[in-house]
């Protein structure tokens, strides 16, 4: 093992022994962002954006942003190892697969109408 590799190993072991400690300030800021997001979600539900699809889009975008904040900071995924991040990503990826193929069928039925009618 070269000195360089040994040094890298040591650095890695050191990093593992002292995991990243997120400052309390970060948690408070994330908490406030989540609260503001909730308030905006409720407020936006009373606004007519012209089409109800836009209301749904706004509500879901805020929910996704809130969920991302929770995953990255409260659940420490921003500071987690690559293999943990892979597990998180694969969970989401399979959800996308579930939704994509389900909706590709159910939500598109009737788009082309019924032949002969």
């Amino acid at each position: 093992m070269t000195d360089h590799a040994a040094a890298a190993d040591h650095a890695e072991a050191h990093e593992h022994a002292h995991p990243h400690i997120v400052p309390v300030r970060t948690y408070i800021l994330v908490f406030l962002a989540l609260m503001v997001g909730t308030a905006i979600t409720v407020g936006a539900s009373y606004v007519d954006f012209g089409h109800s699809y836009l209301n749904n889009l706004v509500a879901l975008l805020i929910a996704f942003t809130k969920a991302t904040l929770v995953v990255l900071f409260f659940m420490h995924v921003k500071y987690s190892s690559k293999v943990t991040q892979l597990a998180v990503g694969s969970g989401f990826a399979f959800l996308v697969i579930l939704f994509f193929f389900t909706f590709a069928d159910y939500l598109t039925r009737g788009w082309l109408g019924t032949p002969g009618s």
Partner: protein
Amino acid sequence: MSSSTHHPAYVHHFENLSEQKEAATFGMWVFIAQEVLFFGGLFAAYAIYRNLHPEAFYFGSHHLNIPLGAANTAVLIFSSLTMALAVHAAALGKRQQIVGWLLATVFLGSVFLGVKVVEYKEKFDHHLVPGASFQAGQLGMAEHIADPVLRGKAERASQIYFSLYFSMTGLHALHMIIGVPLILWIAARAWLGQFGPEYHSPVEIIGLYWHFVDIIWIFLFPLLYLIPKPH
């Protein structure tokens, strides 16, 4: 070999405590991935039926209590903060703070469940629980949907909305009911001084579980309570 292999929580099939912690975190995330798909099926069912019966979902949604739902969302987010602070205290080895923040989380979780009980009772009182006693007439569709055939269809479909409301919020509440005694168990272990900067995986793992339950609610609240008028 590091000194972490002398820690009482260390189990010998891991190289050291940090590898042990890594395995625990990874395992929990695999479990959460499974939970995502578990709830995902319900969210998919929700999307399919809401797409089929937009009026039924809109009118059903307007019989939920938005102030209670919003307040509960805030309570649950607050409980995620207290849980994050418990994990933070564990990483710093502050025993009393771990217990304090965990008990605060249990308290807030109980408040959430208590509010849910009030909301469920309202639905039972108003005959909005799917089944033989379900009364769709009060949903107020008569004034908005003139065609009696379409109205009858929407009124029947409103049972699907309330079925999804009860199964989704019920499964979410079940997760919290399971989570509360688990947190109390971890709090007791924290009180006994089992966690410190070197080893506090159980606090982290129960934290991941609690935050996941919070995320589910973050989606349930707008999808069930805040359905816009379809147009």
